[in-house]
């Protein structure tokens, strides 16, 4: 497992998953790929299929409909897989805590490695979170 993890950290491919967010975190995540921030210089690449992913970027408060899909999708990711919760909604459900349709926070559904707070987090914060994730996992090897 650790060899796999070591290989993964060189160039983590990310899959972006929105579980009922307001779109801001998703747009800010995409912003990281564009010229001003350019997260690809860290070897990160947004992939189209979850089967290619090393890292899951999850944004949004999970609602009843997406919880089932989340579990299914998490089973499909090749392991080891790291999970990043982007934004306050994914971290703690934030303003949607009292909503009838957001029953559980994300970390009760799947294991989360890094939380990036903010509504929405700035691209700089997302990049800092990604770097911290690499450092954190790298130090355990």
């Amino acid at each position: 497992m650790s060899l796999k993890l070591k290989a993964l950290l060189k160039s983590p491919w990310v899959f972006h998953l929105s579980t009922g967010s307001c779109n801001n975190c998703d747009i800010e995540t995409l912003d990281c790929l564009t010229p001003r921030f350019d997260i690809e210089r860290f070897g990160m690449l947004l992939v189209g299929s979850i089967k290619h992913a090393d890292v899951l970027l999850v944004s949004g408060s999970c609602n009843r409909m997406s919880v089932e899909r989340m579990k299914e999708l998490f089973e499909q990711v090749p392991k080891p897989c790291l999970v990043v919760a982007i934004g306050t909604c994914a971290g703690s459900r934030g303003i949607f805590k009292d909503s009838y349709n957001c029953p559980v926070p994300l970390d009760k559904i799947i294991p989360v490695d890094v939380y990036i707070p903010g509504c929405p987090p700035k691209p700089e914060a997302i990049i800092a979170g990604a770097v911290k994730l690499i450092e954190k996992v790298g130090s355990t090897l």
Partner: protein
Amino acid sequence: MGKTIIPIGPYHPLQEEPEFFTLTVEGETVVDIDVRIGYNHRGIEKLSEMKTFENSTFVVERICGICSTSHPFAYTRAVEDIFPMEVSMRSKYIRTIIAEGERLHSHLLWLGLAGHFLGYNTVYMWAWKLREEILDVMEILSGNRNNYAMFKPGGVRRDIRSEDIPICISKIDSIVPTLVMLKKAVLDDPVLHARLKGVGIMSYQDAIDFSALGPTSRASGVARDVRKDSPYGAYQEMEWDMIVTKNGDVFDKAVVRILEMFETIKILKYCLNNLPDGEIDAKIKDVPPGEGIGHIEAPRGETFHYVKSDGTNRPMRHKVRAPTFMNFPTYKATVKGQTISDATIILAAIDPCYCCTERIAVKDDKGRMLYNGQDLIRLSREKTEKIRQRMGGK
């Protein structure tokens, strides 16, 4: 030839948000389309009814990140409609500035994504690079790149400092040459002409029948813009043109949005240069019983809010209708008869925004109820049924 059903979604790279399309195809041609939403429903209307009138602005702001001005704008107008009150001219100007800044970055975002879908990643990168400048302006004015929290019933929360204005104007000016270049690159490109012209045509009659809104309808020749039809904010103070084109295809939808960006820059600069002095907050104490409606022109079309007050400090009923909700059914007119490869850009051409739209999902796959509020269920179902009948009686 047998029919094949192609499911797309709910999680896929086409758009950032979860949604589920079923395309029924015969060979290459799409013969039917069905859209299923509900992956983004968060119960905002009920949440808003738990909050006070002032705090609700923060909830409605989070309906959609890209429309994080349109929803509070419509909501505050609805609250101000409940009882007669005067909003100061300065706060009207500030509201207009924030709303137009949002329109500018939203259209740039769409342009970038459209380029991305077509395989023109250069357009994607250019447009999003320009968008960063606008987000900088918004950060200077409001303190955040998105979710500006500028609105409150009766005025705005934060004033614009006069020393910030020249910086903002110079930043807005700095994107104009690149925007002109981008406009030429997109509108004169022969490949884009071949790819987009005559694709996904929505006729004038279809736009009327489906009650399409915003740039989607304006591309089909329907001159419909809340900013002109029922002026609010500071829009009647300056000269600007409503962009209307005739063909209704994807190309025209792009043209409308690109040309609208230049109008927006005009409005923005006028407002920043002519910002009147005065109070920014009317300091509302109590909201009397009554009901009010507020509608404004969001980047995607008309956003409509209804607020009912029973004299307490929180809304008794709050109803939201987002523009994409009205633009969704136009897929029935535009996608049918097109090839699968064109379906992507046609689906993207209305600039769909699912997190805005998800007001109506009342049932999950097995028909279990997700709502508790009986009133909401009834209203939502009636509305869903109406849309279903209009979309083909399924």
